[in-house]
């Protein structure tokens, strides 16, 4: 009986682990090293990272450039530019999104892909 319970629990834990691994769409990308970015964004220029963040507020919008949002990641607030191809994605404050971002010139974080978590 006890063994059966242990097996069930193990199955559940394994399932959860497996589920988590399988729900991250950019699990092959490394997460943005936020402290490094804040310290010197130029050193990360050209790199692509994944970012799991909560939408703060919409800072600006331009049909040609896209939408600029502030997002919160681990207590830090970062600006993320969502280009026009993702205009169809409904992004609102408080929602959690997975961003695949590229560190552009001047350290601007530009989303190359967006997935709502």
């Amino acid at each position: 009986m006890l063994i059966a319970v242990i097996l069930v629990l193990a199955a559940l834990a394994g399932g959860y682990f497996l589920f988590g691994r399988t729900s991250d769409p950019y699990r092959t990308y490394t997460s943005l090293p936020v402290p490094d970015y804040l310290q010197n964004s130029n050193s990360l220029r050209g790199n692509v990272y994944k970012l799991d963040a909560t939408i703060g507020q919409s800072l600006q919008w331009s049909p040609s450039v896209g939408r600029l949002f502030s997002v919160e990641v681990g207590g830090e607030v970062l600006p993320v530019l969502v280009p026009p191809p993702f205009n169809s994605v409904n992004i609102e404050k408080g929602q959690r999104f997975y961003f695949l971002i590229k560190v552009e010139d001047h350290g601007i974080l530009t989303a190359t892909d967006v997935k709502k978590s």
Partner: protein
Amino acid sequence: MKTSSPATLGLFSWGASLLFASVAFAQVPDAAPAPAAGGGAPAPAAAPAQGGAAGGGQKNGSFLGKDVPAFDPGSEILTWDGKNWNVNNNRVFQARFEKYLNAPEQTTAIDKQYQAVIAQILALLAPGNANTQNIDTAFKLLPVGSRFDIDARLCDSIADAVYSAWRAENAQNRLANANAALDAERTQQYWNAQHVSAGDNARENSSTGQSGRSTKGGGQKTPSATETYEDTMRMTEHTKRIAEIEAQIKGNQIKRELNSIQAKVEFQALVLQFFLQRRFQHVLIATRFYRAVFTDGDTKLNVGKDTKDLFEKSSGMPPTVGTIDSLANEALRDVREGVQAYNFLLEKQELESATKRLAEAFTVGEFVPEIRTLTRDKKRQALEFTHKTNQLISAIDVKDDTLAEQLVNDLGKIAKDFDNSKPMGIIGASKQVSDMHLAKARNAALKGDNATLEAELTAATELWPRNPALAELSKKIFSQGDVQQKAVIDFEQLLSQKNYRQIYEDSPRFMGALAFYPDKAAKLKEVMENMKTIEGALMRADEMVRQNNYPGAWESVEKIAQQFPEDNKLSKTRADLTPHAADFVRTLQDAQDMEKRDQIGSSLAFYLKARKIYPASDFAGDGINRLVKKIVPES
């Protein structure tokens, strides 16, 4: 005979003294006698006197000018040679009068002895007493009188004049004797001439056989041609001698007359001189000697026409020794009366009138015993009044109204009869107008109208230079000027040091001082507005601190601190707040640092974080807006 009043007499005497000054220098008879050819008394004084009349007098009118001096008793104004002045307001007179008022009374034993001598002489020569013996006694007393200093040796002058007159009289006697001798000789010459002529006839008769001579002489032969010639020559000599004697007698007669006139003229000149000197006692002595010496009854004064006219017009009397005598007597009486009036008015404390009476009496009878014996204590009372009135005139002249008013009050206290209406009228008007100008000057000063201020102050100063209100106002203006000047200097110094807070704290001082400097006033206004901004920020910071909003407080101060980095209080507050808002401050500094390094993304991240710490942050908001526009330019 017309008589003059004592007052008129006194004034006449004073005015006449000036007139007679010319007479003294140019006193001559209308027809000046020719100098004696020989014998008789010499006339040393007559020659220059004559010259004076003939020279200056005839050509220029008179020695002292063309006009005869005129005195108006009503206004006490003397007009002379085109000039007018008040006899009581004359520096020379005032000086002499004050000297007299300060002099001690002449009541010493010596003074009394002198007056006794003079009185004795006058008594001896008085009408009824003037016999030969008294005249001689009086003459002997003259040297005694001249020994006193106060006499100024005038008695000697009288004695000299009398002696000269007597010498002249003796000379006349000698001429008379000479004429008598000449007359006898003339008679003898006539007789001789007649006898010579008789001898001629006898010889003539005997030659022709006619006539009585032949009966007397009997048988006398007819004179020869030689005898006839000799008789004729003798006759001629006698006739010539007779003619010479006749001429000598006539010459002596002329000399006698000239001597007489000369002696009188000299004596009269002396009498007039004493009269001019107001030595009336000596006038009386001289006139009485004159009458005793010249007993022919001729007392007419030999003076010029102008003087004669003046005498006749002013006194109604012809100029005679008697006239002078009576005028001198009248003057003495007038002076006595003046001194009595002075004493009476002094008792009544009517010093103004008293002083005037004494001045009049002094003017006429400076050497009269009653004037000389007046006690110094009594004179000093008049002196005090005179001093104060002279001081009052000076104070009004220099427009010192304060002193003038004080003097008027003082004079009112010491002289019951002092009329203060005129001086007070002048003082009051001057004060009122001066105060009006001062009021205008004050208004101009308040308005900063320097031109009007200067004009009004000048006008006020001219009217009443020692006005206390003027001094006070001037002091204020000057002190204000000093303060103002110092304030301007301080302001400029603080401005150069950018010590706006000090300017702000002393702003009341600078506001008044810089009112006259528009450019500096504009600077001050700018400083004041800046300081109001600083103070406003500090107040806001204080309020935020009370709410524990340190980031807000810091930002409030920081924004102003960037604009006014020199303000110490602001800097100190900023420094105090920085530790309390360290996280916010550091985040902002990081944002700014990244922005400077053109790391827009990182910078924006820090600004966003800062706004998260202090959502109302303008720094963060501005930074965000600025960077957002860079990332997403507005379309």
